[in-house]
């Protein structure tokens, strides 16, 4: 039976949800107008005052915020509360340019942890569970978010953080972890280590909550089979609090957005125009309950689809598809759009591990695409011809998927750096 952390909210009628959104949006716009001069100026430039926003139907009038705005306003430009009322910052793992720093009041942390608690309960979590949190702790939102959610549910919380595989597995076995929270690439790595060490019979995992990076359905099935669990997706960004903006239910057909805290829109990334339900486009979030970092119409760069079709789990929140790519993740190689997730799909179909690296370069003014793939004991043979044939069929499958030639480089296992936070899947050497 489906369980909920806050059933009266998660299963509220659409009218009720809209009423909450109308009321909270109006209040939030006033809060931002009064306290965030950076955004007030943007509104003034469009000739808007808070009186112009009477409800969700007026949301489209408001100006967007982008990552560039966050960088420009760094560190305090988008702060909505006096620092004395803030109790925490979290930050993105951005490697280029200035970091994004998000602020939280205690109220903000509370609501964020509620959102994570909803995800844990949706994955079957109760106060009898042992929740093993292997997301990074620290500035990264993954660890603190799920940790807080796990406390709220009443699980025994193991604040493992990432890294130190021996210790991870030892605690998993000795303390009987039942729910694993980490990035999907780290889950795949742990699953492989468990498999290698023959520990499958000694672990008690029943569910996993995996997010913070892109992963495919094939990867989900692979992790589920190796660990004997049900794997749930969770979504979020530091800018909007962290993980828990949306989460998967037992149906596993999309993530319910916590609409009592966020209003989601899908826009055309080129024109900024709001698209009708069911359209594929860029996801935009408006935080309607956050005090310290109240972002209005924040462009996520994630491409996905929203659906309000009735869900069998009983939740009434809108569902977003797994992001189909990020406008900034997409590679253009020889004029063709290539998403790393496509390559991952082919690798798993052909029996290779999902640990890969894509190297794009330019040689003699022509783009080259190389995929580093790990050899496995199952694929290895003493016959060079057999290996060469396998490599050829992988090249053919990649060509069929991508439409362009990709060179395959077979490497020994563990050659590709295993990330214990976010995976480095793409190295683009063309940027000069």
């Amino acid at each position, binding site marked *: 039976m489906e369980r909920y952390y806050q059933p009266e909210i998660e299963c509220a009628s659409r009218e009720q949800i809209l009423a909450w959104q109308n009321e909270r949006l109006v209040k939030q716009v006033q809060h931002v107008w009064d306290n965030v001069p950076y955004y007030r100026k943007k509104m003034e430039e469009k000739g808007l005052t808070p009186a112009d926003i009477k409800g969700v139907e007026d949301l489209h009038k408001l100006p967007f915020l982008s990552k560039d705005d966050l960088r420009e306003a760094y560190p305090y430009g988008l702060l909505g509360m006096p620092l004395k009322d803030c109790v925490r910052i979290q930050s993105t793992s951005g490697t280029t340019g200035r970091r994004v720093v998000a602020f939280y009041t205690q109220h903000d942390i509370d609501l964020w942890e509620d959102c994570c608690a909803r995800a844990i309960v949706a994955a079957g979590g109760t106060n009898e569970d042992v929740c093993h949190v292997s997301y990074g702790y620290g500035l990264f939102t993954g660890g603190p978010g799920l940790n807080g959610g796990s406390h709220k549910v009443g699980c025994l919380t193991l604040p493992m953080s990432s890294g130190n595989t021996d210790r991870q597995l030892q605690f998993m076995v000795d303390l009987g972890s039942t729910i694993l929270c980490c990035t999907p690439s780290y889950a795949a790595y742990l699953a492989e280590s468990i498999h290698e060490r023959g520990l499958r019979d000694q672990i008690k995992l029943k569910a996993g909550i995996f997010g913070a990076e892109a992963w495919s359905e094939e990867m989900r099935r692979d992790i589920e089979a190796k660990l004997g669990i049900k794997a749930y997706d969770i979504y979020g960004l530091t800018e909007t609090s962290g993980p828990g903006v949306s989460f998967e239910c037992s149906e596993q057909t999309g993530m319910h957005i916590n609409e009592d805290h966020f209003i989601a829109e899908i826009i055309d990334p080129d024109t900024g125009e709001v698209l009708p339900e069911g359209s594929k486009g860029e996801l935009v979030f408006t935080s309607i309950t956050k005090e310290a970092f109240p972002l209005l119409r924040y462009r996520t760069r994630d491409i996905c689809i929203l659906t309000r079709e009735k869900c069998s789990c009983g939740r009434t929140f809108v569902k977003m598809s797994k992001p189909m790519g990020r406008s900034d993740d997409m590679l253009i190689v020889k004029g063709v759009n290539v998403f790393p997730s496509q390559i991952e799909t082919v690798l798993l179909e052909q029996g290779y591990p999902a640990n890969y690296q894509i190297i794009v370069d330019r040689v003699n003014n022509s783009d080259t695409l190389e995929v580093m793939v790990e050899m496995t004991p199952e694929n*290895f043979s003493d016959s060079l011809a057999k290996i060469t044939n396998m490599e050829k069929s992988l090249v053919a499958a990649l060509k069929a998927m991508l439409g362009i030639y990709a060179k395959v480089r077979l490497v020994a296992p563990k050659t590709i750096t295993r990330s214990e936070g976010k995976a480095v899947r793409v190295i683009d050497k063309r940027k000069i």
Partner: protein
Amino acid sequence: MTIHQISVFLENRAGQLAEITGVLAKKGIDLRAINIAETSDYGVLRLIADKPQEAAATLLEQGFILSMTPVVAVSVPDEPGGLARVLDVLAKENIDVEYMYSVFGQVDGLAHMVFRVADTEKLIAVLKANGVEPISGENLGIR
């Protein structure tokens, strides 16, 4: 009469072969034969060690990908036409040799060749029927 060959995946990386022979030497493992098949990007190292189980365990521990392959060793007179006579026999019996290579050194004027075929039992039977005796692991110093 079969001998355990260890087949190891090699990636195209300088020093990998030295790494393999190094860790084996450290364990006091002696190599009786070595053969490499490669493309420009990767290869397969085939080796016969005096202590096959220990050698395999050592390499696995170091994270190498490997498999154990049954092969057959044959003594061949170290003189012109010695090998040709053995190959003639195999050709007549339709035994396809996937690959072969020689063992280090020779004993009593005989060179030793290692053969990899699909059906080792058939190969052994055919050799015996033609008066060529496969040699055992002990004779090659394999424990």
